[in-house]
């Protein structure tokens, strides 16, 4: 008998960073590193599982900003240049480490990683990662979901239905353009849910989402099956509930699998450890030290002296952690099943995709391993969210409460002293955008282009990534500039429209730089009555 179901949900997201005015740009590396360390390794995992006929199922939320960047020809070509540079460094590393019995094999591992990435990206996928995902989507292996247009933390904007609707509409339109069909699932950025958002989501044909355990357990009324079954809102929209134990197994910084001493250390990197004259060409402007991706040490544990990374030792731990994950889920399902009226308990395990491979180097191997190990196990099966919804359409009726997966469980991460100044500006932009949409409801030609660009700038300013980075103290100047640029661009457009003048050259340049959401319709900001 089936005692439990597991839904592995990966949230793939990066903020929109595209700087055509510069020959290379530090923050564009976020995308390049994620392609190299997460997306391509995961695609290789999927190919191996397919080849071995292992049943695997993943729900994958792809944010519209990442979708746009993966499909962008400039960023694709820049990725190939960056990859060539990484390959060059890998060659140099092989030469530097040759003769060293410990580090020479590791330098080979990196060389092979970048060589394979180059081959896969340029030849196998022809630069089209979205196409590769679509292949598995059509096969029913990946349940692709969309997400907020620019990863806005939606509860903050709940008093502006025009803004939340714009986040949903732009996402759905982008998804249709990329994959030729409408999405059914919507990932709430940061799992930021609030009561009432289900009406907006349903209006665009979306059927399900994932909420935090806190939001669900505080729902009205209290769910009768805890986090082990989704709940349905009164309008039929389904909310799946994050499973705390499955998430903590990977997420906990101290007890999670990625903290194992045998795994590769994320922080020790030759970009910081080797002389500038050696790493100069591969870091920023030859002098600003940054991560290169070449890391030779294991996490090791407490103490100053790290031990060299051993892929074999790490592989053994991957197998153990995959077994433990399966065993613990079976134990959890068995305990829950006794209270479930015959329906198998569902454990929804959502994670950020970029942490597999990038932060947790062995993460893709672990994903492969859990599917392989679950194959021969009775009583546990992987399932996608849409498949579950089809199998179990009737659920307990409840509306989850406003909550998130951030520290403290609500909106504190995105609203505190380091980042709260953002909202004065973004709220003003939204109000002015509503005003513009009301004043100019039927524009065409140049004025329509201007209004659409204004709508893009509003969406870009709503990104939760920038307040997040301001709080984290990481790339803070860059984050601040992203918000300031969006506000400045928008205000300039607003003033141009008020003065009935348009700087076409400036507008064209801006459209080329911030070229996301080509099919946006500014009228989405018309007042919701």
């Amino acid at each position: 008998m089936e005692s439990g179901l597991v839904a592995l949900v990966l949230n793939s997201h990066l903020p929109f960073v595209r700087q055509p005015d510069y020959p290379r740009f530090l923050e564009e590396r976020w995308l390049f590193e994620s392609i190299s360390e997460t997306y391509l390794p995961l695609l290789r995992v999927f190919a191996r599982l397919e080849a071995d006929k292992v049943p695997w199922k993943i729900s994958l939320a792809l944010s519209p900003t990442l979708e746009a960047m993966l499909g962008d020809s400039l960023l694709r070509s820049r990725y190939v240049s960056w990859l060539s540079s990484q390959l060059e460094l890998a060659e140099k590393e092989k030469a530097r480490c040759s003769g060293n019995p410990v580090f020479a094999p590791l330098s080979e591992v990196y060389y092979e990683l970048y060589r394979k990435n180059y081959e896969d990206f340029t030849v196998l996928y022809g630069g089209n990662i979205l196409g590769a995902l679509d292949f598995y989507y059509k096969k029913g292996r990946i349940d692709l979901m969309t997400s907020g247009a620019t990863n806005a933390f939606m509860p903050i904007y709940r008093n502006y239905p025009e803004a939340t609707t714009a986040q949903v509409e732009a996402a759905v339109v982008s998804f249709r353009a990329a994959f030729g069909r409408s999405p059914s699932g919507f990932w709430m950025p940061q799992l930021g849910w609030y009561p009432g958002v289900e009406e907006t989501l349903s209006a665009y044909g979306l059927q399900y989402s994932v909420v935090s355990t806190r939001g669900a357990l505080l729902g009205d009324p209290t769910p009768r099956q805890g986090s082990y079954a989704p709940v349905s809102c009164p309008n039929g929209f389904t909310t799946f509930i994050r499973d705390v134990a499955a998430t903590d197994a990977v997420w906990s910084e101290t007890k999670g699998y990625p903290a194992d001493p045998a795994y590769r250390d994320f922080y020790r990197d030759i970009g910081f450890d080797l002389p500038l004259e050696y790493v100069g060409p591969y870091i920023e402007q030859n002098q600003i030290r940054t991560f290169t991706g070449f890391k030779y040490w294991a996490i090791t544990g407490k103490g100053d002296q790290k031990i060299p990374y051993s892929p074999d030792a790490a592989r053994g731990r991957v197998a153990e952690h995959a077994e433990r994950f399966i065993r613990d889920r079976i134990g959890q399902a068995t305990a829950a099943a006794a209270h479930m009226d015959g329906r198998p308990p569902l454990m929804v395990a959502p994670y950020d995709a970029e942490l597999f491979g990038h932060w947790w180097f062995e993460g893709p191997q672990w994903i492969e391993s859990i599917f392989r190990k679950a194959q021969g196990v009775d009583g546990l099966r992987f399932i996608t969210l849409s498949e579950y919804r089809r199998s179990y359409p009737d659920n307990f009726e409840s509306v989850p409460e406003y909550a998130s997966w951030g520290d403290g469980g609500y909106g504190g991460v995105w609203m505190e002293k380091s980042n709260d100044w953002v909202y004065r500006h973004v709220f003003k932009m939204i109000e002015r955008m509503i005003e513009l949409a009301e004043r100019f409801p039927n524009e065409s030609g140049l004025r329509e282009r201007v209004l659409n660009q204004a709508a893009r700038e509003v969406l870009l300013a709503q990104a939760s990534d920038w307040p997040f980075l301001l709080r984290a103290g990481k790339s803070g100047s860059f984050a601040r500039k992203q918000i300031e640029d969006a506000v400045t661009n928008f205000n300039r457009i607003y003033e141009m429209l008020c003065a009935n003048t348009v700087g076409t050259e400036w507008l064209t340049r801006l459209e080329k730089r911030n070229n996301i959401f080509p099919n946006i319709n500014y009228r989405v900001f018309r007042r919701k009555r």
Partner: protein
Amino acid sequence: MNVERLNGLSIEALYALADKMGLDLPPALERVFVVEALLEAIEEDSAERKSAGDAAVHIEEKKYSGSELDEIDASIDAAPCIECRYNETVVQVIARDPEWAFVFWDVKDEDFDELHASDAYSHLFLRVIKEPGYDGKTSASFEVVVGDEDDHWYLHLPEEDRAYRVDLYAKIGAKARLLAHSPVIRTPRALMSDSLADLDPDAAELAALSGLASLKIVPAPEHHPSRILGAFDD
């Protein structure tokens, strides 16, 4: 941030970072001690954030691989370069969690000049109004005096699962003049909708198995009083 990266910073940047982290270090301390103090503070900060519960967001930081500019960034308290206000009379409120809301406001220059022209003008204040709830209670309010130079505030709201509005007033003599009012917000629930007694034993067990205790979620008592009724002048 680790010891290697701290060692790469200038002593001025280390002091600036210490200042930002709230460390009161004696001047001209040897570099090694500054680094040690910073590492200790970073570790404490990290422990606090872990104990705050949900580590998902903290882990999310890892995907934005940084550079040594991060530390320099962190040591600079840069104000936004864009214009900070729109010269309008307005008040906005956003619910942050069950207890706190972020309020920001502005008074346009013309209105401010008019206020200051009056000898009777005393101060600005926020009136926090609890909107009538579905329990049929009438609205209630309390006031918070704010400075003329202030433009934002975190307000502690006495009750979870309540609707609030914030009005911005000017105190002129014995009278209060309404300048602007915010939209209505609702604080999220902090207690479960149902008490354990309302749930059947299976549902209560499944709630427990879902992590009720680790998330520190409290079921509703059978009759729970409002937390700080005294804050209102009903």
